[in-house]
């Protein structure tokens, strides 16, 4: 019995009286023979008290609390672990029945849309880049819209205009050629600076044009796009600032900003 320990959640359910009499019996039989589980159960009220207290200092003694600044440093360490864990996450295996899955999973759908978008706009964007518009013009696509696939938006100081009335939209933002961060985040803020959305962006290299074309012989990096999807209803209609933030370890740096207008959300 002691080898088959109840999970902490089951112990909590037992303590809360949420188990059947038969299940309670089982837990009790285990507890009389298992010191670790008994100690864990006896620690649960402490845990609950510490977690639920409005003011931690009223229930914890000073020597039980972390030192000043420790929580901040600890958070930075965990941020780095999370970033490392995300970048090390293995790619999912190719699914069986790929077409059906791609059309039913929102995540896969956005990935597909982003890939198509990158292929469709890559070459014109490259040309635009080398004609002197260093970052090219952002684009937006409405994948489920049927027919209306791509529209050029923004550029020349105009805001990116995105309509979210009918469904999600995919934004493709050309990355300035000088940008060399391993990862990027998109932040969308109100004009007053309040953060409304923040998400990692997919970096899509656009290095290959249509068959038979040659890459212009320049020392610049090939054009790259940052792609994000905006869900319907996630931003209220109105004006925003969209910021591209480069990430390297714990360092974050704003590298470009666009005016953004959301309509019909």
């Amino acid at each position, binding site marked *: 019995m002691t080898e088959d320990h109840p999970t*902490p959640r089951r112990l909590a359910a037992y303590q809360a009286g949420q188990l059947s009499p038969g299940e309670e019996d089982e837990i009790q039989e285990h507890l009389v023979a298992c010191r670790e589980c008994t100690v864990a159960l006896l620690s649960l*009220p*402490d*845990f609950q008290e510490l977690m639920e*207290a409005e003011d931690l200092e009223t229930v914890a003694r000073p020597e039980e609390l972390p030192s000043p600044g420790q929580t901040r440093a600890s958070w930075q360490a965990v941020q780095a672990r*999370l970033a490392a864990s995300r970048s090390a996450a293995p790619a999912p295996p190719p699914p069986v029945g790929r077409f059906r899955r791609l059309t039913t999973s929102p995540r896969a759908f956005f990935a597909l849309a982003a890939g198509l978008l990158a292929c469709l706009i890559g070459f014109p964007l490259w040309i635009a880049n080398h004609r002197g518009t260093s970052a090219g013009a952002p684009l937006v696509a409405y994948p489920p819209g049927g027919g209306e696939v791509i529209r050029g938006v923004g550029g020349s100081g105009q805001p990116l205009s995105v309509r979210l009335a009918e469904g999600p939209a995919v934004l493709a933002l050309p990355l300035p050629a000088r940008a060399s961060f391993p990862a990027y985040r998109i932040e969308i803020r109100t004009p007053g600076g309040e953060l409304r959305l923040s*998400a990692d962006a997919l970096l899509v290299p656009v290095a290959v044009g249509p068959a038979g074309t040659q890459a212009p012989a320049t020392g610049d990096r090939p054009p790259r796009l940052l792609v994000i999807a905006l*869900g319907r209803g996630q931003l209220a209609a109105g004006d925003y600032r969209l910021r591209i933030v480069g990430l390297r370890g714990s360092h974050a740096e704003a590298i470009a900003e666009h005016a953004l207008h959301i309509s019909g959300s």
Partner: protein
Amino acid sequence: MTFQPREPEPAADDPVAAWVAQIQAGVDVERNFERLYERFHPRLFAFFRRHGLAPERCEELAQDALFNAFDKIASFEHRSRFSTWLWGIAGHLYVNEQRRMGAAKRDGVELPLEESQPADTERRRPGGVVLKAAGPSPYEEVEKKEQLATLREALISLPPKMQRCAILRFHQGLKYREIAEVMRLSLDTVKAHLGQARQVLQQRLGPQAGTFFHEEER
């Protein structure tokens, strides 16, 4: 990469649930993780510290608990409070730590907190019970098993709950209020059960019964 088109569930009276819902919806993720961290890191640290672990170990465990929680946050379904869900992770780490430290052994001696600090090999719980960090030796393990078997045999005529109360007291050395907590019984019921169990032990085992009783019970 994508902002999932999913509405966060607002929870005006529970800011923690609101932060979690926003993270799950892809809204202001970093800031909300940071808010959760600021709230729960000191609490988890205090929990592990209260249970006798060294500050460095408390930091590692608090960090691991929150890292694991953030990693799995998509699986939190808002059926309970976030802190209850967090217990599933932190409690697991705590139990593993108990095992890692060698099946902490309670010696049954109760000391007030104001008394001298325990030696390095011992850990103190806030209730005043001192736990020995070193695990039992193989000889002690065998002896304990034999004691448990003797107790169970002697108490076999008693109802199961009474037997369990007696084992928790005479074998694990728990205090009355701890037995009441573990068994989900009132303190009076525990006292009554133990009184009866003590009589049975004395009848069945004679003078040998005394080996199971704490000093104040002899």
